[in-house]
């Protein structure tokens, strides 16, 4: 069983991209916060230490890979899922280099994303 009541930070610069995920995660008893660029996301990570962060890659100021590295420096236990429309092999490579725990491509069924999130939240 995955744990409920986790704090999940969702980061994407597209205003509508996060809504379906938020809706579903809240309905499943999780707490969500959203941010629309990497810098704002880092402020939230510093202050609130969420359990897991879902990161877009293509964002102004700080891209997802940079944000991922910074998050893992603050606390390696914070799970990070890279969720991007970038599909080249190089993108998967950069995600792994930045310490991400998972790499998923857009578009994604939110059911599948939630499954990945809960898998990462479940202590193995």
């Amino acid at each position: 069983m995955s744990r409920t009541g986790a704090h999940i930070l969702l980061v994407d610069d597209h205003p509508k991209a996060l809504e379906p995920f938020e809706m579903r995660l809240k309905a499943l008893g999780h707490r969500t916060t959203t941010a629309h660029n990497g810098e704002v996301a880092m402020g939230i990570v510093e202050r609130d230490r969420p359990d897991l962060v879902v990161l877009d890659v293509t964002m102004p100021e700080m891209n997802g890979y940079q944000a991922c590295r910074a998050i893992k420096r603050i606390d390696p236990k914070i799970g990070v899922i890279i969720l991007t429309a970038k599909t080249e092999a190089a993108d998967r490579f950069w995600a792994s280099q930045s310490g991400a725990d998972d790499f998923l491509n857009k578009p994604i069924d939110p059911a599948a994303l939630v499954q990945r999130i809960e898998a990462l939240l479940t202590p193995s």
Partner: protein
Amino acid sequence: MSVAVVAPNEPPIVGIVVDETAPARSAVIAAIEAAGARFELWTPATAIARGAAAEAVVFDLAASSLERLLPVAAVLDGDPRTRWKPRVFVVDEDVPASRLASFGAGALVPAIASPETFGLAIERALEQAQARRDAHALARSSVDDLRALERTLVAVQQDGATLSHDARVLFGVILGFAANMRDGFAGPITEEQRQHVQNILDASNDAATLLERYASALRRAIPRSSEPAQATAARVATRQHHDLGELVRATVALFHGIASAKQIRLAAEASRALFAWCDPMQVKQALVNLLSNALKFTPAGGRVNVSVRPGPLDPARSAAMARPDVEIVVSDTGPGIPEHERSRVLERGVRLERDLAMPGTGHGLAIVRDVAELHGGLVRIDETPGGGASIALVVPADRRGRSGEQAAVSVSSAPPRAYSVPPSSARST
């Protein structure tokens, strides 16, 4: 490159290399002027200094001047600006025949020749110079054109990548909301509504996959040296055990509208489940291409039939097989594909001459072949009894003990594995 450029309306210059002690022959001068050119009299020193400015060079040779004038030819040979200038050697009777071979390339004209012969020699030399300049200009503009084309292709590739990315982001939004509606996160939903939403989801997923294919095709078309592996990696199939019977039924259903509009009877024989180890999205694309072709080439009143069945045992392949292949066969009653063209039509961009009037790019069957190769399978082209084409996409039924994995990662360097067999040795069904 410093090719002497003659300004328009300026008569071309023909240099006459002549011994200071001998006057230039009037017949040579008359021929140059008759050809619309201007002459300059050159000593060996001025010949070397002015060579690049001239269109052609005349050597006015006598036995007494050979040793002084011939070294000029060697100097002109050593300079890229003058090496190609056409030469005319006007040779006095006293020059020994044994020396003629040492002059190098050029026209030989005896000093006693007629004015017409001089005229012809000068005209030819000027024509050669002009041809050389034209060829240079053409080469230069071809290189410019190619560079411009390359820049355009790179821009198209970048635009395509951006389009694919941005559209996939938007499909993410569509998919997100639709999936939440499907799963009841936006309130109760009837079974019929749920089915409609699922159709939206399926189409969105397919559209996003097509966009990614488009971007990936662009990446392949213009490989970047910094990412050698991606051309192949982007195409490696994500495989699963998938029921091809179901896939065929669902895909054929999309074509019933087109078929009935063209008065073609379209039928699928896919009653039982037949699993194959494949990337369903790729197989679906291959089948879409095969069906589009079949419906395009089949005349009204004809038939297009799709069947899924276990593939025949191929003696060359059966040793490594745990289970036989599965094949999807699309047969039509169109004009068919002549036997000698069957391997050619699988190549990218190839279209049969008789089909050139019809819409198409010649990529459809090449993509089918790519999909087959990625799966370690093949494409087989036969003749439908009574005429049309019968094209089989053969993919492995099982992942165990197959060489398909290897074929998938090395497809870019592998020779084409597609082949065709004559109808007489076709499968036994």
